[in-house]
């Protein structure tokens, strides 16, 4: 019953999806971050009535608008790809995946679109209070939008609140709140959205530092740095906190991802954290993964061989045992469908019972070699270190910039201004590295334990996927160049009016 799917088709489809998602995520975090910073700046304007702050707000709104316009709708291509490249997945997940995306589209996107118009067109046309509310609601709309997208993504990492229906071959939602507020979704939301806030703060501080280096718009730059650095400290500390919670969650729910991120072959109690190569911090991984100095952390081999005690006292199954259960589930699905066709009630009931018992391992039935359950270790390992290392650097940078700004010395520190400027690309790299850990680290699963990518994929011609990959690459690159050019032009032009006001 084995039908071979060309591995190059899987690789190209994954590459195409990764390309689209990574380009999409170049625009989204800056939208999320700048939206909040603009809101704070306009609140200062509302409170003080100072035209200076109005102009500061308007400048950053222009930058926000460029990013928003170029980035808008790049996510739609991802939704096309679900239907075309991953049609089995789309059918299998049913409305669980569709519902959050539909809510995102109807509620959040319309909210965002409505208020963004008031934000840009409403200066001097609506009251100050209504305009301020519109600016905040634009940000809130973008954030709610992110919530539902992250709910959908979290469900793929930790499928909950559903029941598989063998008649419709779909997972059906039985508990909306379990899906919408799963612990994975809540932590992922805060960690991801706050990382966008951090990028927004890095961008504001970096661009403002460039003005200081050029000795232009100094008052504007100092005011922006004050807000950006303060906001950045708060956001980056929350990112660190939610990252810590996320680590414990991943160790529990996706232990293979944790083992890959650590390059941990053999686990145990009181495991060291590998910084790089032979530099290790004793017991640190156990603390990070379990919040217990002697906590047990399984390694890749432990996860494949099973036999260790799980936190609930049960003994972990080996990969081979899981594969056997997965096969049983798939055979039971086949038998169920046959029994329905033949109208055999007894056989149908038997098959349903076996299917329900083994459904949590359904996806393992598609795994030929247990070693394919191990994600790419090198990429996950280094992406994790880049993300965490840069995250720590951002906290330090914001604190240092904030401190020297407070002491009124920052404008005389060109080396630090250069560091802040060159941190802008690092902010993007950290965001991308985070998603690489999240997505590459959970391979081979499209849905954790339930559907691997080789079963989720559509039967397409590899050549057509390759062609669309390169079309997207060219299209997205043109858009990115357009954005960078327009943005750089606007930044170089600078907030002219502000200087006059100042």
């Amino acid at each position, binding site marked *: *019953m*084995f*039908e071979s*799917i060309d591995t190059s088709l899987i690789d190209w489809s994954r590459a195409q999806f990764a390309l689209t998602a990574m380009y999409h995520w170049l625009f989204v975090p800056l939208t999320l971050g700048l939206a909040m910073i603009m809101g704070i700046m306009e609140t200062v304007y509302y409170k003080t009535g100072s035209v200076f702050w109005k102009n500061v707000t308007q400048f950053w709104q*222009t930058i926000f*608008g*460029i990013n928003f*316009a*170029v980035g*808008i*709708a790049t996510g*739609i*291509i991802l939704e*096309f790809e679900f*239907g*075309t490249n991953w*049609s*089995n997945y789309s*059918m*299998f997940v049913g409305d669980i995946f569709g519902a959050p995306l539909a809510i995102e589209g109807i509620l959040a996107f319309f909210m965002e679109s409505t208020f963004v*118009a008031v934000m*840009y*067109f*409403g200066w001097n*046309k609506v009251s100050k209070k209504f305009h301020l509310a519109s600016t905040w609601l634009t940000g809130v709309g973008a954030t709610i939008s992110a919530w539902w997208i992250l709910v959908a993504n979290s469900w793929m990492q930790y499928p909950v609140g559903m029941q598989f229906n*063998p*008649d*419709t*071959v779909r997972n059906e939602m039985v508990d909306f709140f379990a899906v919408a507020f799963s612990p994975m979704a809540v932590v992922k939301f805060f960690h991801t959205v706050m990382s966008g806030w951090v990028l927004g703060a890095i961008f504001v501080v970096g661009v403002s530092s460039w003005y200081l280096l050029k000795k232009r718009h100094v008052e504007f730059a100092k005011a922006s740095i004050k807000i950006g650095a303060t906001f950045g400290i708060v956001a980056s500390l929350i990112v660190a906190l939610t990252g810590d919670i996320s680590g414990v969650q991943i160790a529990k729910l996706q232990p293979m991802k944790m083992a890959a991120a650590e390059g941990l072959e053999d686990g145990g109690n009181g495991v060291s954290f590998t910084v790089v190569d032979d530099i290790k911090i004793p017991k640190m991984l156990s603390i990070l993964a379990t919040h217990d100095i002697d906590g047990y952390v399984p390694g890749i081999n432990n996860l494949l061989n099973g036999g260790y005690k799980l936190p609930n006292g049960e003994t972990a199954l080996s990969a081979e045992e899981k594969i056997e259960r*997965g*096969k049983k589930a*798939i*055979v039971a*699905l*086949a038998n169920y*469908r046959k029994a329905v066709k033949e109208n055999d009630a007894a056989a149908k009931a038997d098959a349903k019972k076996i299917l329900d018992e083994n459904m949590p391992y359904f996806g393992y*039935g*598609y*795994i*030929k070699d247990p070693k394919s359950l191990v994600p790419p270790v090198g990429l996950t390992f280094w992406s994790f270190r880049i993300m965490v290392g840069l995250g720590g650097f951002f906290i330090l940078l914001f604190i240092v910039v904030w401190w020297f700004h407070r002491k009124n010395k920052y404008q005389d520190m060109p080396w630090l201004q250069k560091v802040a400027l060159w941190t802008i690309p690092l902010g993007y790299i950290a965001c991308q590295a985070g998603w690489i850990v999240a997505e590459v680290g959970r391979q081979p699963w499209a849905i954790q334990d339930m559907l691997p990518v*080789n*079963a989720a994929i*559509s*039967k397409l011609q590899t050549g*057509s996927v390759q*062609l*669309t990959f390169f*079309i997207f690459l060219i*299209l997205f690159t043109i*858009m990115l160049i*357009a954005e960078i050019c*327009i943005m750089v032009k*606007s930044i170089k032009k600078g907030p002219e009016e502000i200087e006059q006001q100042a």
Partner: protein
Amino acid sequence: MKDNLLRRIWFFYVDGFKSMTIGKTLWLIILIKLFIMFFILKLFFFPNFLKGKTEEQKQKYVSEELINRAITE
């Protein structure tokens, strides 16, 4: 009253679009992008895999896909 409100909203947008500077370039980018996405990519490169199938046919197709791709020996 209702007409008046609609008129005000209409002119709010018309005036807004008219007074845009950099926004006009951005709208052009948005329109080109949407055209490429919906009229070129969607039409030629995103054929609907399950199009034309009834719900029952879709279920049959996907169940066969899921069953046949498994390794059961």
